[in-house]
């Protein structure tokens, strides 16, 4: 260190691999011009003066900390978040009245027969491979995966009149076997918030949180820095692929990442990797590789599987526009037709999917997969909602189930009778409608009009 230089040390929480090594931050000078980007937790020598250290933590929170660098001195900046936990709050809101007094049932995959609701207490129905520990006082459910081959895990919290399905990010493959579900009913708002807390070892969650909070540029930086390592160490292959999908969408790489194909082979269950690999092969100059990619795309879209919405979008794009225009166009058209139901029900208007609703099913029966992840919005048009129900007679585990937040009360209750009798599938969700909220919104609109506001539409 020479002359008028001082040292800046940025201290990041050490319990997060992503934070410690890879979360990028930027340093700007007093005129807010960029001085440098940095990623490592190492001292940085700077001329004395005022600086702003800016980064987005793995909670998605953007933090800027000013620093005064003095000649020959070390200045420590600790841009820790006020909330460094991994808790994610579901955007789904359920009227609390519907769940209290209540009998909540935690059901998983193939549930045992369920007795009709009885005393207002909590009951845990244990599936063969899922342990559910409940704490009625704290309104907390601890879930632990006890057996393999249960990826992903679904849980349905059901009461007399309402139910809520959550997809739990549990995976035996990734040693992520437990999580905690907290229920926060609010008498004041009449709604219930549900939060799922994951153990901190989900290393790629910084990337997901950045995307969930719209920090696209920083997420890209994390993806560039961390994807390969996430994949190569099998630390978090799901997030590795998510990062690669992000790069594919925003800044398609000129070179094919070498880790995609091995990951695809080793994690055969990860269909996102197959679609991504197909996309990369589609740009190959080798006709054989393009043919291979085409076959991979068709194979992957043939069977139902869990996907990030970004993967689904990429698959649709490839099915529509494969570089070899005349190759397999009939097959692609057939796939597109089969997936049309899913496409129509997904909101692709959002630039990027958020963590809470990243997974969709690549299947015409996947409608229900928006259930717990779609922000609840009061239904405006009963007729329209009715049309969005699945056609009767559809095969598969989602038969006849409506979309979350887009259902009509009587139908919901009927469906739940079926659930209780064990004759209906468990991987479904339904919510009661929220007519008061709808009326309230309409009243607000009327009042706004009276105050001189106009709407650019119907």
């Amino acid at each position, binding site marked *: 260190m020479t002359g008028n230089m001082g040292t800046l040390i940025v201290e990041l929480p050490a319990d997060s691999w992503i934070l410690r090594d890879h979360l990028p931050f*930027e340093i*700007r*000078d*007093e*005129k*807010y*011009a*960029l001085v440098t980007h940095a990623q490592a937790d190492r001292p940085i020598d700077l001329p*004395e*003066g*005022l*600086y*702003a250290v800016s980064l987005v933590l793995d909670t998605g929170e953007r933090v*800027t900390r*000013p*620093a*005064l660098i003095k000649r020959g001195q070390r200045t420590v900046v600790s841009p820790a978040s006020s909330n460094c936990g991994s808790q994610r709050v579901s955007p789904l809101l359920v009227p609390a009245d519907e769940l209290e007094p209540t009998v909540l049932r935690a059901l998983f995959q193939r549930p045992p027969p369920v007795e009709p609701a009885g005393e207002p207490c909590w009951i845990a129905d244990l599936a063969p491979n899922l342990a559910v520990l409940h704490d009625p006082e704290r309104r907390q459910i601890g879930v632990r995966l006890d057996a393999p081959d249960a990826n992903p895990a679904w849980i349905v919290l059901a009461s007399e009149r309402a139910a809520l399905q959550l997809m739990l990010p549990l995976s035996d493959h990734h040693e992520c076997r437990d999580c905690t579900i907290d229920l926060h009913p609010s008498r004041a708002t009449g709604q219930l918030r549900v939060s799922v807390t994951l153990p901190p070892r989900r290393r790629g969650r910084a990337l997901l949180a950045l995307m969930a909070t*719209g920090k*696209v*540029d920083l997420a890209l930086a994390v993806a560039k820095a961390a994807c390969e390592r996430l994949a190569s160490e099998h630390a978090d292959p799901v997030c590795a692929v998510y990062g690669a999908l992000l790069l594919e*969408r*925003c*800044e398609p790489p000129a070179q094919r990442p070498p880790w995609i194909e091995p990951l695809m082979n080793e994690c055969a269950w990860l269909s996102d990797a197959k679609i991504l690999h197909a996309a990369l092969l589609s740009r190959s100059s080798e006709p054989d590789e393009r043919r291979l990619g085409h076959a991979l795309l068709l194979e992957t879209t043939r069977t139902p599987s869990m996907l990030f919405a970004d993967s689904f979008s990429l698959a649709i794009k490839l099915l529509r*526009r494969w570089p070899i*225009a005349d190759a397999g166009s009939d097959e692609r058209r057939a796939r597109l037709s089969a997936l049309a139901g899913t496409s*129509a029900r*997904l*909101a*692709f*208007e*959002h*630039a990027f999917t958020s963590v809470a609703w990243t997974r969709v099913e690549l299947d015409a029966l996947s409608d229900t997969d928006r259930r717990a992840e779609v922000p609840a*919005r009061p239904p*405006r*048009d009963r*007729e*329209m909602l009715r049309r969005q129900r699945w056609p009767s007679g559809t095969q598969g585990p989602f038969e006849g189930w409506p979309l979350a937040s887009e259902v009509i009360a009587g139908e919901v209750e009927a469906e739940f009778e079926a659930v209780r009798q064990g004759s209906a599938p468990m991987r479904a969700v339904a919510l009661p409608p929220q007519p008061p909220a709808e009326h309230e*919104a309409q009243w*607000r*609109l009327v*009042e*706004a009009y009276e*105050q*001189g*506001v*106009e*709407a*650019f*539409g*119907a």
Partner: protein
Amino acid sequence: LVVTSSTGGNVVSNAPKLHALIIGVSNYRHFVDGDEPSPAGEALDMAGLSSAATSAAAVATWLRTDYCRHNPTVPLGLCEILLSPSNGEHIAATLDYVPATLANVRVALFKFVKACAADRNSVAFVYVAGHGVQISKDEVIVLLEDAGAPGELSPIEHAIDIVSCRDGMSHSAATQFWFVDACRQRHAIAKQFEPLKGALGLPRRTENTVEASPLYLAASDGELAFSEKGKPSFFCRALLESLGGHAAVGPDETCPSWYVSTHSLGDRLEIRVKELASDHDLQQNVVVTGGPFAKRVVHRLPIPQVPLRLHLSPGRAARDTAADLLRKDGEPVVRQSRTWPLVTTLDAGLYLLEVTSARPYRDVTDILTIMPPGLDREVEVGEL
């Protein structure tokens, strides 16, 4: 080669240009309250607007003034302006425009597409305001002045499908910005047809060479887009505020001067439109969609001037308390100010605040990050 433009700014003569297509429709002549009501217009069950043309005019004016002044490296090229103002709207006489009818929009779109396709390095800028009708999730349709004209083969024949136009330009200007200021509620006519086609659009291209093409929608699916009657819409106000500096970021590897980026613009629009709607107890959520989303410069601008307001706590300490605001060289920007609250306007950036008080109050030193749209801060001097 640098020449001086008619707007006073220097322009690099061989630089890629920004081509703009601006459409604002308030007057719907075939609607029930229009000059020539028709059965088809009345069936749309809408009334004319009072601010869509005003909003579009404000954006066009911004392009011709502020944008031209600060963006000599990407000067304004073609600027097609189509406005259909209502009787109560006043459009500046200096703004040349033609009515936003289907025929005029078709001609303007043709010129716009041609200009953008001529130079891949050019920039496309599209702003459309008017009555929006949502037919499906994949379409963003805005009705034109002659919507509901007698003899229509489709209820949306006199409308423009923005998503289709955008898809049809995927071989064109590498950088494109699309702004749609319209409602996105499902219209009743959508139930009568499956699918409903007919709006003006472009054939979808198989090739896609665009590097950035964000589509900023004023409302999310199923939502309304609002304005105060006679004033620019919430979305337009937020857009112009953002471009005026509220979404500005400091110089970095993308741009050597202060600038508004595709990313910072989206972030700010979401926040500001939500605020403006919330002030009227309404909900309106901007959606940034489309893509690719490469970070690109939307607008360059000088260092933003940021309002600063510092309050002293407790207020009784004001008589014995003075404040200095310093920068790196130690030269005070504000020297020994004893007026509280301290109200001033400064270049955006970092400042060292030194507050000196007489006993029993304590001195305070702090670093202020003064960034658009402003900083309102309380300085606590407490008591020793």
